[in-house]
């Protein structure tokens, strides 16, 4: 009996996920943009509808108003993430939609207060009940609307002229344009479609929970994501089925394993499905090109650092910044710790070192190996918990703890690599998101080890910093110790990046197939990169635990993973100096912005957008980039021209492997960009 009830519960919440997932699928299918702001868009639509009802409009009119607002917002997202950012790297829309999500969420909270609001549901109370189970009119409506929306959109894409134009543009923009299709119009139409679906989702989500709050966007968005991925991110049928599959698994696991394992099972399921079918349950086979070694040949590069037409983008800085600059930066941090009399700023500097270390772990993965991780907070957490327990329970000396943290960090990195290795591009990045969520939930539920949400308090670093038998001022000691760990991590990074392994990683980043055919063992090499990245992230976690003295699962949520990723993008993705600069900017900025708390996330979001647009190679490349602009005022003609003009040529053989592919006009975009797009929406018309 309970099993039947839980199935019904699963289908009900699953339809909610499905309607959010549909929005993702449409945007991804048309613009190949992973729209992180989808959840926020749904929530904003719900708020607009609610506000209209408050103002006296009937629900149907409120819905229409919400549709208009949502379409306008969708166009705005298109304007920013697609139009404005243009040929930026694939990873740019990810970042820019994330920035938009911050802006939308805080905007909603500012306009309509952070309080939850009751959402009207005219169908409330209408349901069939039997035993402990019910299926309400609202549930039926949501399920029905999901299916009808899915079918309607599919039909529109298949039959209507505009729908076919949208598909044609998605497959081959150039050819479509030659056939008289205006790509701008079709994309606006597609985003309008996503906006309408977002508004429908907003109203239905509001009716389901009979309550809305401004911070529903992220949890809802993550589940919608998971649903879209499970179904196959290009398939409309997949979005609905994926939503329901996740909903049912959640309900069953909640009922029969325990409510605390609900999300663990959901994200675990996502990983398993990605492993078994990287393109999802209904994903097109053509999309395999985005995942796995074999399919890689279809695309000039499997790297997220390339743009949507496969051209390498200036994200990868070309002139190799010597490692000594990074060490110099560490020296500057240490010197600043010694000179600055304020313990407050010294502890901010300690945090800069910690996050720089964490970001460095990503530089190794993303900058060198082209793997994007949105789950590194969990790896940091493993290091932090290991250090905390060993310090408190065993009282080990620091040297031993560092070794233990290195060991556990490497294991955590390998664990993350396990599902991710077979994937690449967006799929790989989203799999790391799932791993990160699983890590967070594990910290929350492994009570005996982590004390769950109670957290571990009173962690203090083993006393090693005795100079002449006298203890150094604690804040200063911590600042210096964090900087030393950063230096140690730089050393590890250097050993990896400068050696043979570094060359192999960069070769894999550029072209898995080519790398594989030259005898590089792609899987093993990447696994090693993940392990080393895990070691560095673990060290960051260890210092985080020592510096904060208190850790709880709250400290290692997805927001931290996103922050680390933002740091390397802001600083510069291929250079360790970029990690340090990015960490410094993004640690100090919130401290300075704290006075304007209410608008902080909006300002933060705007700064992120501007960075992605104008400084794609990161702050560290600022000086050189200016010079190259002088040499080549025709920077507009594309990234290749820009790279060509400003390129000094690598002098050391190490960076040659990376540079050859990136060296401006010598790059032959051997493959028709259309091929990469192929199948993106073919399948959407299921």
């Amino acid at each position, binding site marked *: 009996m309970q099993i039947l009830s839980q199935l019904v519960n699963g289908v009900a919440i699953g339809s909610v996920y499905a309607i959010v997932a549909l929005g993702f699928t449409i945007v991804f299918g048309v613009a190949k943009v992973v729209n992180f702001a989808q959840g926020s868009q749904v929530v904003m639509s719900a708020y607009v509808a609610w506000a209209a009802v408050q103002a006296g409009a009937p629900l149907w009119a409120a819905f229409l108003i919400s549709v208009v607002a949502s379409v306008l917002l969708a166009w705005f997202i298109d304007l920013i993430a697609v139009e404005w950012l243009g040929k930026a790297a694939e990873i740019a829309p990810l970042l820019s939609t994330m920035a938009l999500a911050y802006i939308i969420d805080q905007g909603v*909270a500012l306009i309509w207060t952070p309080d939850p609001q009751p959402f009207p549901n005219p169908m409330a109370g209408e349901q069939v009940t039997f035993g402990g189970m019910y299926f309400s009119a609202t549930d039926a409506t949501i399920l029905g609307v999901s299916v009808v929306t899915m079918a309607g959109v599919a039909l529109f894409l298949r039959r209507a002229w505009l729908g076919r134009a949208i598909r044609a543009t998605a497959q081959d923009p150039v050819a479509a344009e030659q056939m008289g299709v205006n790509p701008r119009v079709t994309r606006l139409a597609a985003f309008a479609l996503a906006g309408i679906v977002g508004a429908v989702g907003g109203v239905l989500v509001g009716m389901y929970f009979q309550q809305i709050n401004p911070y529903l966007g992220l949890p809802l968005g993550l589940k919608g994501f998971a649903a879209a991925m499970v179904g196959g991110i290009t398939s409309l049928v997949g979005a609905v089925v994926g939503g329901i599959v996740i909903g049912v698994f959640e309900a069953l696991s909640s009922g029969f394993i325990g409510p605390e394992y609900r999300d663990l099972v959901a994200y675990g399921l996502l990983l398993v499905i990605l492993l078994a079918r990287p393109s999802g349950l209904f994903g097109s086979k053509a999309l395999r090109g985005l995942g796995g070694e074999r399919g890689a040949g279809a695309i000039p590069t499997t790297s997220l650092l390339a743009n949507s037409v496969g051209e390498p983008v200036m994200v990868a800085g070309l002139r190799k910044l010597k490692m000594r600059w990074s060490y110099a930066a560490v020296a500057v941090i240490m010197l600043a710790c010694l000179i600055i009399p304020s313990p407050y700023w010294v502890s901010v500097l300690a945090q800069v070192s910690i996050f720089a270390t964490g970001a460095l772990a990503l530089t190794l993965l993303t900058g060198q190996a082209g793997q994007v991780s949105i789950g590194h907070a969990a790896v940091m957490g493993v290091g932090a918990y290991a250090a905390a327990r060993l310090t408190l329970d065993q009282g080990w000396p620091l040297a031993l703890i560092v070794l233990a943290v290195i060991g556990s960090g490497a294991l955590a990195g390998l664990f993350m690599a396990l599902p991710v290795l077979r994937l690449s591009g967006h799929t790989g990045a989203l799999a790391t998101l799932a791993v990160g969520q699983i890590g967070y939930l594990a910290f929350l539920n492994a009570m005996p080890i982590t004390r769950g949400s109670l957290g571990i308090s009173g962690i203090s670093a083993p006393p090693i910093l005795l100079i002449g038998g006298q203890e150094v001022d604690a804040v200063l000691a911590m600042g210096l110790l964090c900087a030393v760990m950063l230096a140690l991590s730089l050393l590890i990074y250097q050993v990896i990046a400068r050696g043979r392994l570094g060359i192999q990683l960069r070769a894999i980043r550029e072209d898995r197939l080519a790398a594989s055919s030259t005898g590089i063992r792609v899987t093993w090499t990447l696994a090693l990169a993940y392990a080393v990245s895990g070691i560095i992230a673990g060290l960051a976690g260890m210092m985080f635990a020592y510096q904060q*003295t208190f850790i709880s699962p709250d400290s290692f949520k997805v927001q931290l993973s996103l922050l680390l990723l933002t740091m390397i993008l802001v600083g510069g993705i291929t250079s360790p100096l970029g990690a340090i600069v990015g960490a410094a900017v993004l640690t*100090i900025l919130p401290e300075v912005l704290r006075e304007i708390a209410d608008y902080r996330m909006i300002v933060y979001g705007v700064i992120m957008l501007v960075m992605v647009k104008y400084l794609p190679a990161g702050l560290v490349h600022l000086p050189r980039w200016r010079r190259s602009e002088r040499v080549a005022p025709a920077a507009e003609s594309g990234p290749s021209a820009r790279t060509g003009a400003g390129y000094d040529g690598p002098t050391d053989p190490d960076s040659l492997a990376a540079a050859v592919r990136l060296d401006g006009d010598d790059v032959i975009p051997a493959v028709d960009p259309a091929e990469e797009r192929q199948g993106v929406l073919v399948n959407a018309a299921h």
Partner: protein
Amino acid sequence: MSISRRGFLAGVGTLAAGSLAAACSVRTTNTSTDGSASGVDLFRAGVYLPLTGDLASNGKDVQRGLDLYIKQLNADGGINGHQVEFTYRDTKGEPKTAASIAQEYAQDDDIVLGIGAFTSTATMAAVPVLVKNGIPNLAPTSSHPDYTTLGPGLFRGTPTVDVESRLTAEFLVKTHGKKKIAIAWRQDDWGVFANDVFSAAVEEFGGELVASLPISLDTKDYRSIVTQLHSLEPEAVHFAGQYAEGAVFAQQLAATGWTPLIVGSGALYGDKFLELVGDAAEGWYSPVSFFADAVSPVVQKFVKEYTAEYGEAPRTFAAIGYDSGHILAEAAKTIDATGKEARQPLIEALAKVDIEGATGQLRYTGNGDLAPTPRTWLQIRDGAFVEVGV
């Protein structure tokens, strides 16, 4: 395009220079006050609460209560002639940010007391820094049992949740004679503690705990939990959670048509819960420390002034914030100092506080914990909270 890029670069430069200037100015203000801390005629407390993020509505309640008390206090001449001022900081609910704010306060010699944070995880990340610098901390809402053990000078603004959990167990098993009991608890430090105490107390009073189900904070859907609860057929259910999820839980439970005896947490109390839940929580009980219709003159004064100031009735967290302001004022009135010099005397004075607040008689038991306050039993009848005798 290239012009706008140059323009942007100039912008970045200005921004960088600006932040640097801001950073420096923060430092210089602080160092300049070093020499003349007592010359400042302000009694300054650092208040750090979640003012944005998903805990913002609770944080803002505490903030409003605090502001209301201090506004009146300042209008009446402040503390020994010193106006009280708060340096507000937003923790976003993040422990990391709370720790960083604590460093900022530690830096500021004008700060006498820290007030915050909201969740215990954020509080406990911040207080080690405050303790190290001799700054006392008053945590209006933090319920973590370990909090007051982290050092001297750590005080609570409200008794821990165990008071409420024990009373609820007694109410269900003894008063109502229910044998099979279940609890659904919010999966944070507050809920973990509530569940521990409640589960033990149910057994102690002779009841049987048939289910203990955690409610994940990221899950907004509770139908599976309702179904599971129902299948275990408890006679009574304790819902240990906050009002936002409480409303969804109540609606999804009511939809099944199953009506066990339900006791919610005291945190449900307030108009917002009634507004969100509609008629789905009819008959629910709630033990509260603050009840707006209580006869106590302190409560009546607070409710009247709060409603006049903010145009809505206060919730429990606002009352707790108001009482925290009261505690601060009561302790500080014996001290004739501000800034750094006032910290140690304030710790000693806080320990002696014994006041009648809006949330009951608040008296410290020596280590910063408060003596249990009595609870008023409320029941939701016809869409309103009404007092019931037990």
